[in-house]
């Protein structure tokens, strides 16, 4: 009966219910959207690591994020490849370059050199062409989302990066980096573009055999290569993200907007639910007189808060999924990991309850005697 009363009052007081609902939707959508952009940027930050297919990265000593890795000797490759638990090891080269568009303007890019034919850490989604295009000595890929910035270069045509001749031999699909627009090419061309000394690379990617203890393998590799940093791919990914969050002000900025989103939602919920209770003071007094305990009144307001919360979360997630759908395959970073959704839902529900605390306090303080006056 208490749930029926809670629901009926909500349906009856449409304006205040709608107000509270908007508060919850605001929390889910505003916070969710901020998180989606943040998670989207996360995927940009560590995109090479996350899609490398490697278990371990060998980088220069004290590498704090993948993009700041220094040069290491490529001869490490043979020593690593000789270990029995290593399935494959591949060098990787990357660095900044300047793409000259057909219109003569310059656009900065991050050139990634891959050893063919494995092309580890290479492009994984193509809009046109494929990895085999990088077998072409001059072959590079550009991303579909960047084509407009590059002056709509034509597929198969020749352009310049760092004054080095390159040919567009593949168009990738929505592969974005954080340190610049990603341009993949083969190792030889990358070395030429980036003017990297012979026998040097930025990282060596290592794939372990199935069932191998990763920590033990890292220890063994680290002992073998004391001048390098041997790190699990997942750890390097996390390190890279943490580095950017800490050092770019991004963490504070996103944290602030997330808190603002949550605060706006809480304030709306608090005001509307409190107003609703004020409007229903007489009803609560009647219920108290009829035998409702303070606990029963508390449960009614709590149930209302939960009902509004659940409905608002549902609508909020619907809007959020529309946002994610609309920003899919666009330059805007947006990504919501599946695990984040329940956390956001539970968090919103808790904020919703928090927002209704004032209303609950007011509701239980209503004296049944007031109905007789």
């Amino acid at each position, binding site marked *: 009966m208490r749930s029926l009363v809670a629901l*009926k009052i909500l349906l009856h007081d449409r304006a205040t219910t709608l107000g509270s609902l908007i508060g919850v939707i605001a929390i889910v959508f505003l916070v969710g959207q901020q998180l989606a952009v943040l998670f989207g940027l996360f995927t940009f930050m560590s995109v090479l690591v996350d899609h490398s297919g490697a278990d371990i990265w060998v980088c220069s000593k004290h590498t704090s994020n993948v993009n700041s890795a220094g040069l290491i000797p490529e001869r490490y490759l043979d020593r690593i490849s000789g270990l029995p638990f290593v399935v494959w090891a591949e060098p990787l080269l990357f660095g900044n370059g300047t793409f000259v568009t057909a219109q003569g303007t310059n656009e900065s890019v991050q050139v990634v050199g891959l050893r063919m034919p494995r092309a580890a850490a290479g492009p994984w989604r193509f809009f046109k062409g494929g990895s085999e295009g990088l077998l072409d000595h001059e072959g590079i890929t550009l991303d579909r989302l960047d084509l407009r910035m590059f002056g709509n270069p034509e597929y198969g045509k020749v352009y310049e990066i760092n004054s080095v001749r390159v040919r567009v031999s593949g168009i990738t699909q929505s592969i974005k980096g954080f340190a610049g627009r990603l341009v993949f090419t083969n190792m030889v061309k990358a070395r030429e573009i980036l003017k990297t000394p012979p026998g040097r690379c930025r990282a060596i990617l290592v794939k372990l055999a199935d069932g191998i203890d990763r920590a033990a393998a890292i220890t063994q590799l680290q002992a073998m290569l004391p001048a390098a940093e041997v790190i699990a791919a997942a750890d390097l990914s996390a390190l890279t993200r943490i580095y950017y969050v800490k050092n770019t002000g991004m963490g504070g900025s996103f944290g602030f907007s997330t808190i603002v989103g949550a605060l706006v939602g809480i304030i709306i919920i608090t005001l509307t639910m409190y107003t609703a209770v004020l409007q229903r003071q007489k009803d609560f007094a009647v219920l108290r007189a009829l035998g409702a305990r303070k606990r029963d009144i508390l449960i009614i307001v709590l149930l209302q808060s939960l009902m509004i919360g659940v409905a608002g979360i549902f609508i909020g997630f619907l809007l959020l999924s529309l946002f994610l759908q609309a920003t899919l395959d666009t330059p805007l970073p947006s990504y919501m990991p599946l695990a984040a959704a329940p956390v956001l839902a539970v968090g919103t529900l808790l904020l919703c309850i928090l927002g209704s605390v004032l209303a609950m306090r007011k509701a239980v303080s209503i004296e049944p005697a007031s109905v007789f006056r």
Partner: protein
Amino acid sequence: MPQPILQLERVARDFFDGKTQRRVLYETDLALYPGELTILAGPSGSGKTTLLTIMGLVLKPSAGDVVVAGERVTHLPEHKLASVRRMRYGFVFQLAELLPALSVVENVIVAAGIQGGQVSADVRARALALLESFGLSDCLGLKPLQLSGGQKQRVAIARALINDPSILLCDEPTSALDAESSTIVLDTLKQLSRDTHRALLLVTHDPRVFPYADRLLKIDNGRIIFDSRHPLPEENL
């Protein structure tokens, strides 16, 4: 003589207005008996609402005891008082005070299910029977806003009766009604008071209601000045 259902023993009530303490109800002894319609009358500010709310366990007395069916309830905690109200009391308020969000039938059963749990089919059947007996069968799904004043008050009486209370307290139930509706409501209450297990107290300042009384109480300045069951000496009137 039957045992009283409700007794007040030396009950008094003070109010503090922020500066001074004022006594609005002086030591009062009173007993309500089953099968009796008692009318409590008095002018505005005489203390009748204070007395009613103390009898209804929604206001604690400053002194004295309230005894319900032989049990002293004055010092029970709030949640237990609420349960006593739900089990033993029925209330009819001045303006019916139906919940506008609920339908007629829901307004009646809410008094049975407000402490949680499923409302049984028996309660629902009882609600329907009560509403039918008050001529409200056609209004079951209507909202209070769609009812006339008299209909609202009859729904309120049905709500008050849903838990089959032994004490029915009515606070000026006809003051907002026209003459015809007042008569219907008063006739209904009179009939209910014939039930031998129920005591009915009706608060009013309208002398036209007095003929319905089995017992008449008059209160003024916080003191009962007349009780038709125990007439007071002429000089006290």
